Each structure stands twice: as structure tokens, then as C-alpha cells.
């Protein structure tokens, strides 16, 4: 059969067509766009080389967005990993109704970022929100959550954590349940306490999961945070919640600066590539696969 040799390629054609059309072609296009300056409707096109990139690195708002993104990612990813693990440990216990708790805790994952943002906005409303109601009861103070620095950033970080947490919990829970009883038993016999078992034995055993989750959560925090920010703060007050992704959206679709936005997307692409590369290079060494 002569066919045999080519069959795999033939079968790959549909996939490649779609990938090329919807991923590579737009990616190459935005890469090219970033070297031009074009009018809104595209009739005028001037080659400007790296000018768009230079403008970005001289722009106060871009550097600010860089900083905000960094804070947002660090805060959410670190909290999601540790909180996710701790909640998973709690849910791993055999208590009455644990299945119900698990289901309830997983709910935020099923809700879209946008709706999550709307819910938080409602709860953080300075006048009618639940959070301020309790705050004013306890400490007698109202906070203008989404419109004041630094509370706006804190608000979107909390909402982001709330949204991303279930994903980590599910993975850790699955991991915890796959750890064999014998390991734990021998640890108990060796005289370890619960805290030691959690951090010194279980957590290192789940390092492949942690490894996976860190990468996934960074990607999530970088790109999916858009919905929450758009609904809750629209990047304000004065850019204190404008992440790179949100700035990209604003520049492209509100300020009609397609070329600048293209340059931003290329930079985002490079950052993501770098993170993934570094992580696989240095991160993998510390991971123990069983």
C-alpha cells in the first residue's frame, strides 16, 4: 500500500487548515501589523519598523500596566496554589456531606469570569453591597472598593482568586486521593504530625500537579482576568487595574490603535514564551514524578 505513508498527513490536513486559518495566519498578521502604522480602515499603511515598540517602552501607561500585571499574577497565583491546596486537604477528609461541599466549592469555576465580576461588583457596591454592610457593622467604616486605590486592585485580585481557586482545588483533591494510604500510615508511624504530613509529605508528592497548576494559573491570570477587570473596574482608577491584556483590548478596540495593540500582543507572546521556557528549564528539575 503506497497510501500508508501519506495517510497520517492526509488526516492532519483538516486540523492544519483550521490552525493555520485561525491561529497562525492572525498571529503572523499581528506580527506584521506591529511594524506598520495604518489608518483605521486600513487604506493608509506606513512602515515604521520598531517605532511602535519604542513608543510602548516609552509609554508611562504601558510600564504601569506591566507592573499591575506582575502584581496581579503573583498575588493570584501564589494564593490560588496555597489556598487551593489547603482547601483540597480539608475536602479530602471524610466528613458528612463532603460531596456537597465539593460541589459547592467548585461552582465558581462553572461561572464565567464576566458573571463572576458582576457578582463581585454587586457585593462590593459601596452603598448597597454585602461586604460594606458587614464591614460597617464590624469596623464602622465603608470602603469604596472598586473606585479607590489600592482597593480596586485588591477587589479584582480577590475576585480573580475566587474564580481560579476551584480549578486548583479539583486537581489537588484528585492528587491527594491518589496518594496511597501506606505512605501516610508509615509517616504516622514515624511520628509525623498532621502539619508535617501536609507540607512535608503530601505537598512534595503532588509537585507535578503544582508545576502544571502554576503554568495554567499564570496563563489564566494573564488572559482570562480580562472579564473580571472589564466588568468591575474597566482598568481604573487611573490605570491601577489595567493589566497588559486589558490595555491591549483598550488600545485595539476603544482607542483604535491597531498597530500599537499588535505590538503589545507580540510582547505578551514573548513574555509567555519566556515564562514557559524558564519554567520548563528550571522548574522541571524540582518536580518529582512517581
Amino acid at each position, binding site marked *: 500500500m503506497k497510501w500508508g505513508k501519506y495517510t497520517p498527513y492526509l488526516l492532519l490536513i483538516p486540523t492544519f487548515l483550521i490552525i493555520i486559518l485561525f491561529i497562525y495566519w492572525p498571529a503572523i498578521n499581528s506580527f506584521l501589523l506591529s511594524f506598520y502604522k495604518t489608518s*483605521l480602515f*486600513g487604506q493608509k499603511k506606513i512602515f515604521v519598523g520598531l517605532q511602535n515598540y519604542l513608543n510602548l517602552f516609552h509609554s508611562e501607561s504601558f510600564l504601569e500596566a506591566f507592573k499591575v500585571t506582575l502584581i496581579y499574577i503573583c498575588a493570584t497565583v501564589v494564593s490560588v496554589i496555597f489556598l487551593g491546596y489547603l482547601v483540597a486537604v480539608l475536602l479530602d477528609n471524610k466528613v458528612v456531606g463532603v460531596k456537597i461541599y465539593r460541589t459547592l466549592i467548585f461552582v465558581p469555576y462553572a461561572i464565567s469570569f464576566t458573571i463572576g465580576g458582576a457578582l463581585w461588583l454587586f457585593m462590593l457596591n459601596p452603598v448597597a453591597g454585602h461586604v460594606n454592610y458587614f464591614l460597617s457593622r464590624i469596623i*464602622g467604616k465603608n470602603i469604596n472598593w*472598586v473606585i479607590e486605590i489600592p482597593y480596586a486592585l485588591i477587589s479584582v485580585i480577590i475576585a480573580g482568586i475566587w474564580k481560579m481557586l476551584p480549578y486548583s482545588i479539583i486537581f489537588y483533591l484528585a492528587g491527594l486521593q491518589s496518594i496511597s494510604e501506606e505512605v501516610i500510615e508509615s509517616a504516622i508511624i514515624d511520628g509525623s504530625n498532621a502539619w508535617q504530613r501536609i507540607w512535608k509529605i503530601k505537598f512534595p508528592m503532588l509537585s507535578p500537579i503544582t508545576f502544571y497548576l502554576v503554568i495554567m494559573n499564570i496563563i489564566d491570570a494573564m488572559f482570562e482576568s480580562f472579564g473580571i477587570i472589564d466588568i468591575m473596574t474597566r482598568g481604573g482608577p487611573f490605570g491601577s487595574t489595567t493589566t497588559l491584556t486589558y490595555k491591549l483590548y483598550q488600545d485595539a*478596540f476603544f*482607542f483604535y490603535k491597531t498597530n500599537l495593540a499588535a505590538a503589545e500582543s507580540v510582547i505578551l507572546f514573548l513574555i509567555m514564551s519566556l515564562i514557559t521556557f524558564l519554567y520548563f528549564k528550571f522548574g522541571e528539575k524540582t518536580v518529582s514524578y512517581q
Partner: protein
Amino acid sequence: MKRFVLLFLSVLLLAGFTFSVTTIEFWHAMESDKVPLIQNMIQDFEALNPDIKVKLQYTGSYPETLNKLVAAVQTGNAPHIVQIYEIGTRLMIDSGVIVPVQDLLDQDKSYDVAVLLEPILNYYTVEGKLYSMPFNSSTCLLYYNKTLFEQAGLDPNRPPQTYEEVIEYCRILTKKDAKGQTLQYGLTWPTHSWVIEQLMAAADAPFVNNNNGRTGRATEAVFNNEAGLKIFELFDQLNKEGLILNTAREDWSASDENFISGKAAMLFTSTSDVRIFEEALTKNGYTLGTAFLPVPDASVSGGPVIGGASLWLIAGHPDSETKAAWEFMKFVTQEEQQILWHKGTGYFPTRKDAVKRLHYERFYAENPNYFTSLLQLLLAKKDYNTAGAIMGVFQQARDTIETAYERMAAGKMTPAEALAWAEKEVTKLIKEYNSIYQH
């Protein structure tokens, strides 16, 4: 046999009829209860013009509609008529993909554009040419809660007229509890640069150079002037004394909510919300009052600027279709349609005869708040300052001004610093935008 011939003829006629139907596409950005109003307009139009079919398409918010238009033009699927927000005017003029309404007006002697209200025409006329057909027009208005005025011992029929009075009234209207928590604010607003632009025009001051970009392309922002400073100082004072309730940036519904719930006694927002506020305040046991925009002092008198959106004709369609689209545009601005539109939404009736008829029907006598918004527009001084600024980077200019405002409100900048910074940044944006069109 005769019957057959007749049948044959009528089939032929029907066929010819259906074949000659011209379909035009109309993209709009209106939401909720405004959609059925537009659908009714189209029904009426199609009944009068059986040979034209209008395909209505909702294309999302104003910026989304513009983005979709860009994509559609590039792929050759552009609609015939598209509703573009007022600040997109310069972008559309520069786009090279439109047919200026003036071109069709010049050919069509049956339509004298002077039937439309002058202040509205002034906004969409650039360098002497009417570019688009006014559709939904509104301005900024000062809304106030008469009931709360009375409770505070203020005359409910004497709203504040100058900045000084605004501050004075806000001091009286702001209420705090024993712990220092504010129960009621004097003023709220959507924290939107649009309000600042409106106050600038009301103070009869320009926003950008070259007569607000109307006698030539604007090259610089000029709002760092005396009027601009006074506006920023007003807001600074209100913030420092805790008299104003700011919202998240450009959050119209939050400021509406603050006002409706009585959390704030006054509100700057669009005239197109008159109907909503009348209903909502009545429900809460309040009485609505409306007032002209305040001015720095009584000797100054400009007027509000038209906001909203207009209808643009997109080029590249067969002449017959463009003609049909033009017929539709003329129809939309007819008396009957404008009266329904005005009553249904609060947007201005764009025609003089519509205003006259509403008056004869005692509509304004019975709806004094509608009258305030119209009177403010009609009494406005007619110059380039009140015609409003035109520039290609309006969206980002607004963002910049809001940033300046927020920095000032947070106490990081003085009013003078904030204004100077914003002006410098906006000038940079304008120059950057212009560079491609002057290449």
C-alpha cells in the same frame, strides 16, 4: 381565458414587484426599549416604500459597532447605513469609506436641511459640510431631587446656577451620621469626561484648536484655559469637602442608581434619561427637577454640546441602494417619527416642526423636564465652542481626562497640574493621530 390572462399578468406584476425590491442594511447600537421604536420606524417606512426593505442589525455598543464596521469594510460586507457615536465623527470623515450626507442633500432639492434644529446640525457639520444625518441627540443636564431640596430647606424651584451655588447647595444637601459616614451626597456623576466637555461648552470655552477642529483639523488640545481650570477647581472643592459621590469610570448606571435611591441630591447626566428618572423617582416618592448646566459665573453663557449618535452612509454600494438608504434617512427625521422617538426615549426631536407640534399638543406644558432639556439647547449660544470639539482620538482623550480627574480627586495632583498634564497628553495623541493622515 380572460381569467388566465389576468392571473398571468398579476403574477408577472408580483414577480416584477419582488424583483425590484432594494434591500438596505442598517446597523445600530441602541439597546433595550429603544429597539422596538426603531423596528416600528422601519415598519412604517416599509409600508410607505414597498420597494425598499430595511434589514436591521444590532451590532453592540458604539465602539463595537465601529470595530465591526472596520472589519466589514475590509471584507467588503459593509452595511448601507450605520449608527456611529458623535465622537467617531472625525474618524469617519478621515475613513474614506463614507458618502457625506451633504452630497445627497445637494442633489435632492426636495429636502431642506434647515428643517432640523440648528444646534444639532452644527455638531455634524464640519468645515461647512454636513457629514451624517443626526439621529439620537442628547446633551448633559443637571437633574435634582426636589423632595430632598425641600427637606434641606432649599427652594425646590431654584436650582443652582453657578459653580459657587453648586458648592453652597452641596454643603447644605450633604448629610452625615454621628460616625462621620455620609448618608446623602450633594452631587453625583458618571465620572465621565463628557460632563467636563459639556461644562466647558456651557462656559463658552474651546476644547481643541482650529475652532474646535471645525475650520481645520485640530492639532492641539486647548482645554487648559480659565474655564477648564474653574471646572477642575469646582470638582476639586467638591471632592475635598466630600460633597460629591464619584462612580467607577464612565459608570452611568451607578450614578443613576445613586440619584434614584436618594443617595445623592443632584446628578449630571444625559437628557435622554428624563423619562427613566421621572418614573423611578416617582416610585421612590421623590419629585424630579431639571436645570441648565451651571456656569462659572452669571455673566458667562455658552451652552451644552450635542452628544449621542448619527447615521452615516457607507460608500461602495450601487446607486439605487444608496438612494434607498437616503430615503430611509430622510424618513427617520420626519416629524411623526421624531415625535415618537422623543417621547419614547428623551432624545431630542431633531426637527423644528416636531417641536412645534409637541408644543401645540401641550406636551412641554405637561412635561416641564423635557422642556428644560430642549430649552437649554435652544437658548444656547451658537458658536464653535458649543458646536463641540472634533478630533480623531476622542475616546483616548476622554480616558486621559478621566485619569487626570482621578489623580486630582485622589489628591495626587492640583487642579492646575491635572489639567496641564491632560492637555499635554491629549495634544500628543492628536499629533500622533494626525501624522498618518498628513503623510
